[in-house]
């Protein structure tokens, strides 16, 4: 239950409701144990976007700076949506993969723990 | 363990006298010098007495002049014409 107290009616819309993105939705991407990138990055994409396109363009553009990127065994990777393990198909769209507005997709690459195993 | 009350001043000629007065009136005072500032810690209760500061400066002193040099304090404050006190109860 809210603890908000006000002197007058108080009802304001969310700044980041999906309606504000002209048919697109927000998606956050993080690569676990590779904290060199400091924080996840955000994209606004149509729900029809193929998941594979996100890996091949956006993730590769950002993450290939890390020497571990070239070492990834893509058959062994796992994914989380928030804290929930999910199976993602690179040939399906965001919508068909069950990825909604403001979901956080986390890439886990077993055996790769960053520079000198530091998590960075 | 008694908590420290403390006060810090900008380092200058006036505060040199004020710190000397604090050391005289608070036997447990520990003076910590840092670049451009000086901090004084006293367990429990720190008092600045106008009369002692006046003696060190050789002139009249109004305790509110401390305002000019203060950097920070720790403790409950009580200020009168004659004493400026910082203290922790516990």
């Amino acid at each position, binding site marked *: 239950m809210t603890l908000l107290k006000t002197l007058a009616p108080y009802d304001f819309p969310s700044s980041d409701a999906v309606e504000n993105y002209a048919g697109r939705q927000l998606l956050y991407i993080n690569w676990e144990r590779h904290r060199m990138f400091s924080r996840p990055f955000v994209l606004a994409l149509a729900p029809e976007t193929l998941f594979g396109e996100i890996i091949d363009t956006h993730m590769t553009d950002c993450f290939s700076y890390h020497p571990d990127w070239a070492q990834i065994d893509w058959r062994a990777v796992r994914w989380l949506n928030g804290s929930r393990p999910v199976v993602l198909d690179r040939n399906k769209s965001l919508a068909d993969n069950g990825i909604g507005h403001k979901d956080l997709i986390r890439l886990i690459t077993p055996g790769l723990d960053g520079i000198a195993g530091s998590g960075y | 363990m008694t908590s420290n*009350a403390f006060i810090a001043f900008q380092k200058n000629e006036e505060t040199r006298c004020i710190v000397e007065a604090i050391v005289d009136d608070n036997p447990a005072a520990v003076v910590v010098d840092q670049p451009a500032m000086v901090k004084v810690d006293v367990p429990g209760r720190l008092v600045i007495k106008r009369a002692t500061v006046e003696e060190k400066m050789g002139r009249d002193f109004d305790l509110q002049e401390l305002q000019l040099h203060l950097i920070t304090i720790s403790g409950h404050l009580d200020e009168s014409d004659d004493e400026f006190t910082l203290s922790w109860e516990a």
Partner: protein
Amino acid sequence: MDMKVSKKLGLKERYTMMTRDLAWDTTFQPMDKVFPQVGYEGIKIHDWNAWEDPFRLTMDAYWKYQAEKERKLYAILDAFNQNNGHLSVTDARYINVLKLFLGSTPPLELMAARGFSMVARQMVGAGPRVACMMQSVDEYRHFQTQIHSISNYNRFYNGLDEFAHQQSRMWYLSDGKSFFDDAITAGPFEFMVAIGFAFEYVLTNILFVPFISGAAYNGDMAAMTVGFSAQSDEARHMTLGLECIKFMLEQDPDNLPIVQRWIDKWTWRGTRKLASVGMMMDYMLPKRIMSFKEAWEIYFEQNGTALFTDLARYGVKVPKCFDQTIEEKEHITHQSWIGFYMKPDATPFHTWMPQPEELDWLSEKYPNTFDTYYRPVYEHWIAQEKAGKRFNNKTQPMNCQVCVSTIKFNEPGDPMEMCFRETVYKGEKFHFCSDHCREIFEDEPEKYVQTFISSHAALQGKCEPEGTDVNAHDYRPGARMHAYWRMDKRASGDFNGSEDQKNFAKWRAQATQN
């Protein structure tokens, strides 16, 4: 001995006449209609006269001492400028700490001035009204002197001139702006806990004491005098915050749970804000007095323990976040510097990798964490930079919905894992950097759904420079953020190779030879 005859009243009498005797209760309108804000937060006050400013400062004395402070300050600033004081700082990297400090703080001082003048109007008792009015004037003075201070450097160095434009637009300034926006849109008592108590009493010591002393240590007389002149008011501000806490707790036992929630909330919000201050101490001062960790131990852990041990008699507990901040003191400054270093195009100040002896200093000051987690990535980046591949992360950040920091902190207990928290409110997902921020959101979701996150606003097409055609076929939202931010290209990028670096070296050479 001659008796010293004084016609003047004593301090206590003057203060009483100035406050109690000058105040009155309204009769044409009921008091609760004239002062509606003091009731709605749920704080119960029975006797406003119980509030006393222990400094017992009256207006005449206030003007006298403040005028004296200003005369001293400007005398020093004049001397600084007449002596080309900017060339006496340790090295030109130091200027960047000023850009960050002076580029972010003045607008926050202005918000504090506004907040305290509002609270001065809203409070019923003459004691708090006078003290809040003085604090409002103080904050306005800080705002002005800091802007004057900008002009002393702006004529020589890049990146300081658009701080006012950038305040409500720039990604890394959003956390401070959000802090003050949150406080000023709360009621008067919460504002007092937020700014007067949590920020002034518990946290500003970190900003103004070791950091400004650090400015002095680095030869910057101007920043030192501006900082210390502001800090000379802070002792009064801290006292006001602490008095407000005691006043609420003494007035009614029902106030305790409300006050405790505010202490928990605002201590955490302030702690998050200070991550970048800690980074300035550990990474941006070429000569350092103490590490952020050491400052945190003295000014937060020891001083905070003294404070909360004392307040325990009212039933107040140490802020909920206390233990987490102790764990995080070993990490947050490094995590912040990594976050800034990797965005060389997105700040109007320069960043750099620490020099070898600076890496060693960090190892010594952070023996539990630095060599394990942070040194390897720095050494990797140093090698990359030598190979011409200086890191530049071009992506846009994810931010916490409450503190608006980028989500860059580790899971408590595991420095290799990121900490993520989320919740769903009215069908929409919201993300947080920590349990504490999530709890703040869940207590008042109606407020925090409105948070401004610059990367999101950009992706909505709200961050476009003037003249952008949003109907053009190749229009991409957020693609022209640098123009929107009014970023001076000369001010961004790595310090090595910057115009500031070259100019400083040239001017310093001119100052020491014919």
